[in-house]
């Protein structure tokens, strides 16, 4: 198995929520999409993906419905709820603040420092 970048706790939730903005998607789709968009840097194994999906569902941020996949198999599709959308916004803000701060500490964004 290729080495994957460890995801910060909570970051996976953010990635899932962001991915689902595009529309309802099944678990496999979410994993593929994250991998694609991150150009193979982020690989989400089912071992962390499904617990995360279930966690978000229990929190009421996403909803699950059974439907048919593109190749006509029975699959569970996840979609954002209204609360999830709001949550995504706050999480994004937090993330931006955090990554900005980390960037400042690492000295990578000199113009922001001045």
């Amino acid at each position, binding site marked *: 198995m290729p080495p994957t970048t460890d995801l910060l706790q909570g970051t996976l939730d953010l990635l899932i929520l962001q991915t689902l903005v595009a529309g309802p998607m099944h678990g496999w789709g979410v994993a593929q999409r994250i991998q694609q968009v991150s150009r193979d840097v982020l690989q989400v194994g*089912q071992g962390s993906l499904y617990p995360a999906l279930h966690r978000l569902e*229990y929190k009421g941020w996403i909803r699950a419905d059974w439907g048919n996949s593109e190749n006509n198999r029975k699959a569970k599709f996840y979609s954002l709820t209204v609360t999830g959308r709001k949550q995504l916004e706050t999480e994004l803000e937090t993330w931006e603040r955090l990554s900005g701060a980390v960037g400042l500490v690492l000295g990578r964004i000199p113009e922001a420092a001045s």
Partner: protein
Amino acid sequence: MMSEFWTRLRYLFTRREPDELDDELRFHLEQAIDVRVAAGMSAEEAHRQALIELGGMQRTREQCYEQRPGWWMGTVAQDVRYALRGFRRNAVFTVTVIATLAVGIGATTAVFSVVDRILFRPLPYAHDDRIVSVGLVQSLERQEFAVGGFFFDWRDNQKPFEAFASQGAMPHACDLVEANPAQLNCIHAQAGFLPLLGVSPVLGRNFLPEEDRPNGPRVALISYGLWQDHYNRDPGVLNRLIDVDGSTARIVGVLPKGFELPTLQAADVMMPLALDEGNERKSSPGSAMRAFARLRPGVSIVQAKAELEPLFVHTRDTLIPAPIRKDFHLSVRSLRDRETKDVQSAAWILLGSVFAVLLIACANVASLMMARGEARERELAVRSALGASRGRLIRQTLTEASMLSLAGAVAGIVLAEGLLMVFLRLAPTGIPFLTRAGLDVRIALFTVMLSLVCGALFGLLPALQTPRAVALAARAAKSRNRTMLRRSLVVSQIAISMVLLSGAALLVRSFQNLEGQSLGLQTQGVLSARIALPGFRYDTGQKKMEFYLRLEAALKRFPGIHAVGFSDSVPPGGWQNNERFADLAPEGKPFPEQGTGGSVVSRGVTPDYFRALNIPILRGRNFTEEDRQGSDYPVVLSRLLALRMFPGEDPLGKRIHRDRDKLWLLVVGVAENVKNGGLTEQDEPEIYFLRRSVQQDWGGRAPVGEVMSGAAPLMIVDGLVPQETVALWVRSQAAQIDPTVPVEIETLNESVSKLADRPRFETALLGFFAFCGLLMAVIGLYGVISFVATQRTQEIGVRMALGATRADILRLIAGEGVRLIVLGGVLGMAAALAAAQLLKSLLYNVGPHDPVTYAAVALLLALVALVATLIPARAAMKVEPVVALRYE
């Protein structure tokens, strides 16, 4: 947030199909295979690789389940079931822990509930920490008192107090005369008294200043109890006129429920003190009263006392006659000290001893939990290898500890209730507030928390360590540190029980001395009867005397009655009348210097007093019946007083001059000393006056030479027939003369035994705690030794195989115990010798460092502890070498 909460709640109650998750995971797998097949892999190879990439499905499944809200609740139930199975398997351990906790929690809670009322209870007044009792003290009166002669001067010129007011010297019996008459306690107080205490009436108002003046309007406040019982809580009671002792007063208010006088005396009716200020200022000494004050914020008692000093000096030098000045001192004490000073030391000792028991209990629980934790190290390692997380193991341990603590707490609270009932039954009447003590919830919670913490803390130790691979092998030597910790726990347990035991033993010895001492009088078979004649009907000494003399004559006619005497008090303790030694001088000699010689107990008796109590007359004669009709003042001296007043002379026929009223007393006899200073104090010299058959000797006003106190006489009856019969006769004869008078009868044995109630109570309690402590310490010792023995089973096997005899093994294991006992014993002895100083005030005729007591305690402790060591040591000795070698 709300929506999240509802979602959680919904999932809590709807169960999800478990195979939904399987379907979902299967879809994921199929997709992974499809991708690989599409890339050109064979179906089989694609399947294989996809499975590898996906990793363990079961783990994912479990993790998904764990996301479910309320998932942990299921595991708690699981933990509880598991713990219960463990407890059943280890019944001895479980019962020991619960019993230890129950004793620790129960004893602490019960004792604290009692002691709290004495030491820490807030007084029912506003700013209770600033209220002080102010006044003079002297050798005959140890509680602060004040008189009109200086009170007003002090009130006007003092600086440290923001309020200063007084109540009457003491409540007096008064009669409420109306359709439904009652005998009540009345107290007088100044208008400023209730505001000083921060108490306001629940109904109506306090006295007005103009009511607190002589010839002011007659008003009264009534107690809540009287309002409730007598007036049915009728709000219309205000402005009602009541007849108290024959004069009317208007009710202006009702005191709050639970109101108590700072002197803790009962009072049903409060009336204005109404002193004539101008007159009082001029008089010497003026009316007696009890003064209280509220300190200004930030002023300490010491400061207040220093600031009052000039006023006191002025008072002393102007008001008190020069010869007795030395005997008067200024005193300012906190109200709490005034109320409970004499029981505070006993209360602290009880509290200390019960916390010692709690400490031992905690050490025991800790030690037991550690032993169990070590025994389960292997099990924990197995569970961890099977996938249990650290958190899960810790939670399991915590669950067990809290279950044990909970069970111990329940048992402890039940025990506390029981103990409290026993305390109340056993307790002497003199301890303030005790009868109102209830189980204290705060302290119950505190002790439960404490035991929970010590149980959990030590139970957790093994679970907190990462389960080591070596633990699986189980042969590895167990952690040395923890055994050391357990050993030190045992040493401290033994030391603490040594302290408790020696304290208890000292008290027992002291109590034996107390019970065994000779009182100098006969108490067996003697009855005392107190007959309080209602003041408004028996309003002259003549009427009272007639009643008593008729009763005496009637009783004397019974053939089984040996003696019927009167006195105002009976030794050895309780209230007694006093004379000043310096107030008495033999004829022809000067009075001793005032303030010297202390006090002399005085009793006004009839001739049968000596016969009833069997007090021998050593010289001269007893009073006679003729004396009773005479007009002289014959007296009998105790041997001690005769020796002090007439050293080397014959006191018989000598006359004594009393300074107070210039009365001449004639010595007719000398009686043997009796114990008259209470059970524990030094004997005092004593003078007996004759209670003659004249009205002024029975409570009437005397024009001159009043020898008798105003107290109602106490009848003392000695019968040859059973006491119940005598008591019956006394009651029936009294009823024949006047059926309405109340008769209180007590056997002298009871009254003496009552005096020993306090020491008996203290001894019983401390003894009980010492016993509990010893029991638990021994259990702890036994636990450690048997644990060490089991741990070394294999070593024992090796030693025996190499030729060690069974005696060697016994020495090896028992030696360990002996070391702990000796160390604990020595430490405990040192601590006990230091702590014994605190007991000093409770001890009678035994020093705090009494060697016999300490030797006995050490011996007892050593014996019991040795037995606790030898049992597991003998078990180790009997192990078969082959079994021992194969042990794990």
